[in-house]
């Protein structure tokens, strides 16, 4: 593991700017805790061998033209991270959107220990130690923001983009996050979303990864009468890990997570979601589905955590998983950690295969076996995507699903 620390944390990395103190904290914690191994509970199903075998470059980072961008179904303000660097002129944003460097003092005062913990949070500490820029986007009014993350074939670096999105009281944000990679590097992204009182966020996270290692952490705070809904559509990658934590901070906060992972080949995808009811009168739900083909490995850890005295909290998590090949594996762990009495919390989990009866029913109506299987898979996979509220994005995602199956 020390080799990994060596590669990713060279002594001679230093950007002399206002964030030095924050980076020092990140570095110190990373050195103290180290990188996770398979004895680290939160990483037991996700070995880092692929990353250990790679030599990523930290400096200098040579870049040519940014990667080409696809067409999106909605118009919006584009924040494009290419090789971890934001390709955007803060002055050119639409009115109501303010992009600025994060306040260094605010970062220094944050209690990151409570957020990232120990060894399990190594990549978050790494991000804190190594980020180039820490961005802060403020949103007021009603906006659609497209946040694209790309790399090119020549990519062999490790990059640590960092952004905090603050959705101000009463604002409405549609956030389409579309990310893909080329090359063989490490993208270690950290995203914070703060949904202020009465604000509403629809977050669609689409990722299609290839050979790069992708580690991403998203921390969402939801305040009074605010709503946050995320639909994640993950089409796999060589090694990807997502940590999505949703904290219901104040009464009447509402949060929903829908997830779909479609894996094939020798992909390894690990999703850890956590819903934290910090206080009472809060509602949440989560539905997460994985389809594992080829020799892929899917990991899903979904935790519901209800604090003491968070009475009248309600949460339900459901995960359904399909193993589509003899070589695929799925490891799932839904968790409940409940410290309050007047709550309802439940989860259900299934692992199985496509239903024989449905298959027969479809074939008896004239569809071939292949057509029936494709339609059944599509039906299973489409449900989480149907939760996307913006019709154009929903249809776009469903089109992509057809392509993926």
């Amino acid at each position, binding site marked *: 593991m020390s080799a990994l620390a060596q590669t990713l944390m060279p002594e001679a990395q230093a950007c002399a700017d206002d964030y030095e103190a924050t980076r020092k904290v990140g570095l110190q914690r990373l050195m103290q805790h180290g990188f996770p191994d398979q004895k680290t509970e939160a990483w037991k199903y996700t070995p880092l061998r692929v990353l250990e075998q790679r030599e990523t470059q930290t400096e200098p980072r040579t870049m040519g033209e940014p990667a080409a961008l696809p067409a999106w179904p909605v118009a919006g303000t584009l924040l494009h991270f290419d090789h971890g660097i934001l390709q955007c002129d803060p002055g050119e944003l639409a009115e109501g959107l303010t992009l600025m460097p994060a306040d260094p003092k605010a970062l220094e005062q944050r209690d990151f220990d409570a957020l990232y913990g120990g060894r399990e949070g190594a990549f978050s500490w790494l991000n804190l130690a190594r980020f180039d820029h820490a961005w802060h986007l403020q949103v007021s009014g009603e906006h659609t923001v497209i946040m694209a993350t790309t790399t090119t074939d020549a990519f062999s670096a490790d990059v640590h983009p960092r952004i905090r999105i603050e959705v101000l009281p009463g604002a409405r944000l549609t956030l389409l996050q579309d990310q893909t990679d080329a090359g063989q590097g490490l993208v270690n992204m950290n995203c914070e979303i703060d949904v202020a009182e009465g604000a509403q966020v629809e977050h669609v996270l689409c990722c299609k990864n290839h050979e790069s290692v992708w580690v991403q952490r998203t921390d969402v705070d939801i305040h009074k009468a605010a709503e946050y809904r995320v639909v994640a559509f993950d089409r796999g990658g060589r090694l990807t890990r997502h940590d999505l934590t949703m904290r219901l901070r104040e009464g009447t906060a509402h949060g929903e997570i829908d997830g779909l992972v479609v894996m094939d080949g020798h992909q390894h995808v690990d999703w850890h979601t956590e819903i934290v009811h910090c206080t009472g009168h809060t509602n949440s739900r989560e539905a997460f589905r994985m389809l594992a083909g080829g020799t892929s490995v899917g990991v899903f850890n979904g935790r519901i955590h209800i604090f*003491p005295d968070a009475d009248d909290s309600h949460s339900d998590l459901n995960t359904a998983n399909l193993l589509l090949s003899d070589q695929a594996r799925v*490891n799932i762990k*839904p968790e409940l950690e*409940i410290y309050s009495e007047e709550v309802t919390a439940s989860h*259900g989990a299934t*692992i199985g*295969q496509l239903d024989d009866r449905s298959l027969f029913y479809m074939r008896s109506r004239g569809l071939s076996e292949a057509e029936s299987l494709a339609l059944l898979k599509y039906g299973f996979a489409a449900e989480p995507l149907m939760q996307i509220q913006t019709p154009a994005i929903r249809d776009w995602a469903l089109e992509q699903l057809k392509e993926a199956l």
Partner: protein
Amino acid sequence: MSETVEKIESRLQQRYTAGFTTDIESDMIRPGLDEEIVAMISAKKNEPEWLLEWRLKAYRHWLTMKAPNWAHLDVPAVDFQAIHYYASPKQKNRPKSLDEVDPKLLETFDKLGVPLHERARLAGVAVDAVFDSVSVGTTFQKELEEAGVIFCPMSEAVQKHPDLVRQYLGTVVPHTDNFFAALNSAVFSDGSFVYVPKDTVCPMELSTYFRINARDTGQFERTLIVAEPGSKVSYLEGCTAPMRDENQLHAAVVELVALEQAQIKYSTVQNWYPGDENGKGGIYNFVTKRGDCRGDDSRISWTQVETGSAITWKYPSCIMRGDRSAGEFYSVALTHNHQQADTGTKMIHLGKDSTSKIISKGISAGKSNNSYRGLVRVAKKADNVRNYTQCDSLLIGKTCGAHTFPYIESANAGAKIEHEATTSRIGEDQLFYCRSRGLDEEEAVALIVDGFCKEVFKELPMEFAVEAKALLEISLEGSVG
């Protein structure tokens, strides 16, 4: 509602009726653990050389291990050098029959509701009574012998059936398995040995009653049950300990081997001293129990009712090695005051068409924390596996916690696995409904909790289902008016 909670809470401040101490002289070896102690225990039991070697190997391995810290438990450091690893009531020789057993011991088991003498024995249940580190007597020996069933203390089995013990000991739970299993393998004192021959249905329930009495001792029993092809046996254990301010350690190992078409049913009613309402004292119950469905079409069923112990760390598990083999786990775990429980099961599917079922009911009250932790694993070659898991938690009061940590791992595309978990409290509407039909609050709570646990109680042998229900009711009783 808070008034209701208070009432339920006060009802949970049960008096621990098994908390008395028996005043009997004890033969204890010095506290501490080293190779000499291991050799002393082995010598006390007049064990063969191979068994001493086996113990020493386990001890040396234990030295390289660390106590597990992954459970949702707050375990104070245990000073393993302060424990007496062997204590037995002083008797001149091992009694040849129950008539020779010290009357004080007989009286102890009488008080615990487990009479051993012939006139008062439980009908149809053979009992082996273990007091601290040794077995004081086993009932119905003759009747069992006639059926060909061996049911005796482990120390006796080592002498009389050394080949059987050697063949199976440590084959389900190897000494390397975990910290407490290694410790047990080094210092195990007594426990029960059961052997059911081919095509034999054991003519009666077998039961072991464990009693910790001596101060500063640990109890490290080891139980081994072997069911030959086509045989069937039902076994029950019960446990109690005196009320003491210090914590005492109980680290048992239970191994079950079911060969082709054999069936083993293992039931536990665990009522070790849980400590007082301030969390002082109580037993640390760190137990490794595992059943191996070694033969095709074999079946192992665990049922546990866990109401005692300050800390419970226990995962009775099944390995479905044989094709079409089946594993079951039924559990009720009640925690209150400062009790902590992290308990559940592991269902490891290796055989084709194997099935497993898990029903877990957790009840948390007071300042306790109660966790279900379970693993369902389907190996690559295990085709057509079925598992169903249901975990329900009931919270009583605002200061307790109920947690569920299921691990589900499938490497076979033909497996069907279903898991469901819920957390709730006793509904006001349920209470109101019961009361409007004439039940008082206490009766209503008892009724609802009993209903909540029904699926598990019905798995217990009849005599013990009554006992288990009574045990829960005691926990829910005591503050009338």
